């Protein structure tokens, strides 16, 4: 069924169509570009409400929520992103998203790589504690984010006891075979930095004796490290 020619359409209709299109485009162009400012972040809904809203697709909802959440207070260029966010609300949102999708890594990646990088110490500390709490719920899957949190605690906050607490958590709880040795050995290096050489020596020695490590390269490295520590512990303090 062919259509009639455009010449069959009254000119008034064509004019109205053009006019309507022009006004609509002008109206939307004149409207301010939407962006989610920090103060707009609402309190996180309860997990039951979110499960209801997901219509049986909690993972899909979690992914969509994460994308939406990260848009809050993100403005490239002009100022530091995320600094003005209410971190209590932010943590609640991240926690809910993790409850919806416990296997998802994005919330903890965002927590450690985005939200813990703001130059506000109290907010950094709050986010690091959040990462630690969530790590304890699934250590073998979430250890990379606590490892990053350990680095932030050590190098940004210069809080070695905090870094040691995180590193010790990884050593104690992340026990899966695929957790790399460097992650489990973070505690050792932090103890060295804290000049706790005797404790570090005991830890390495205990680890070697326990037979927990099976990789020859790892065992060789730790053995060498143990000798170095013993040498430094015997040497007179400068």
């Amino acid at each position, binding site marked *: 069924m062919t259509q*009639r020619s455009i010449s069959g*359409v*009254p000119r008034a209709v064509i004019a109205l169509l053009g006019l*309507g299109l022009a006004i*609509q*485009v002008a109206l939307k162009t004149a409207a301010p570009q*939407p962006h*989610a400012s920090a103060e707009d972040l609402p309190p996180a809904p309860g997990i039951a409400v979110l499960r209801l809203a997901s219509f049986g697709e909690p993972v899909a909802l979690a992914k969509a929520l994460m994308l*939406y959440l990260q848009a809050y207070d993100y403005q490239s260029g002009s100022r530091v992103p995320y600094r003005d966010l209410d971190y209590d609300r932010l943590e609640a949102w991240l926690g809910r998203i993790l409850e919806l999708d416990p296997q998802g890594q994005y919330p903890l990646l965002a927590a450690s790589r985005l939200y813990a990088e703001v130059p506000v110490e109290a907010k950094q500390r709050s986010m690091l504690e959040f990462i630690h709490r969530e790590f304890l719920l699934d250590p073998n899957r979430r250890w990379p984010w606590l490892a990053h949190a350990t680095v932030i605690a050590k190098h940004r906050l210069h809080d070695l006891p905090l870094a040691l607490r995180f590193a010790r958590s990884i050593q104690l709880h992340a026990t899966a075979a695929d957790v790399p040795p460097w992650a489990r050995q973070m505690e050792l290096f932090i103890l060295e930095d804290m000049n706790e050489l005797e404790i570090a020596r005991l830890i390495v020695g205990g680890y070697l004796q326990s037979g927990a490590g099976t990789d020859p390269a790892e065992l060789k490295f730790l053995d060498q490290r143990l000798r170095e520590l013993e040498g430094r512990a015997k040497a007179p303090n400068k």
Partner: protein
Amino acid sequence: MPIVAALARTTLLEAVRNRLLWLTVILVGAAFGFTQFLNQVAIAETREIQAALLAAPLRVAAVFILAVFVITSVVRESSDKVTELLLSLPAPRSHYFFGKLAGFAFVAAILALLCALPLAPFAKPSGLALWTASLLCELLIVTAMSLFCVLSLAQVVPAFAAVAGFYLLSRSMTAMQVIAGASLHDPTLTDRIVAAIVGLIALLLPSLDRMTQTSWLLGGAFSGVLVSVFGQTAIYLVLIGSAALFDLYRKNF
């Protein structure tokens, strides 16, 4: 103009005989009963919970009922060859369109009022009046869009899919724009193309996410909202109405 009035009247009559209004009354009654159940459960902000959980589903239900009614009514009329009969009358095609649009607009107004009725005990009068006016505007836009889609696509499923897509996109486009504008890495060419397409689509869609807000019922600020709601509705009705007329004039029956 008598044909416009006659078409509007028959459309309204069809809605009554289809028991559309009864369906809406039952729906409103069921929703009201559900909120009474919530009244027993909630321990705080009971009025707010009732208003919010009544208003939001009624809004979507009204849109759904109206879109389905418009689409099935026009498809049935077309299948029965009534459309061809009406277009053979000595009147321009625009009269047919405006007659149908006026009839559906009446139905939309009745739906909006019925949906507002159960909210009266929970909402402030000024907020409820604004919410009802905004719902009517939203329903008018959906009516025009449904009419445009069904006249162009002529089938129930494609027309309804198009209207549903339009409605969902219009209500979520602001969120999509916010997400598209917050890319954490340097935008690639693909990112720029996608962002440009999202921006273009947003230009052509009405801001339904700013209409019929539940917060108005709960005493939220709404100064100046009415003007923007009416303005957006008027502009969009002109745009979609003229697009539908353009298609109708070019169509061979």
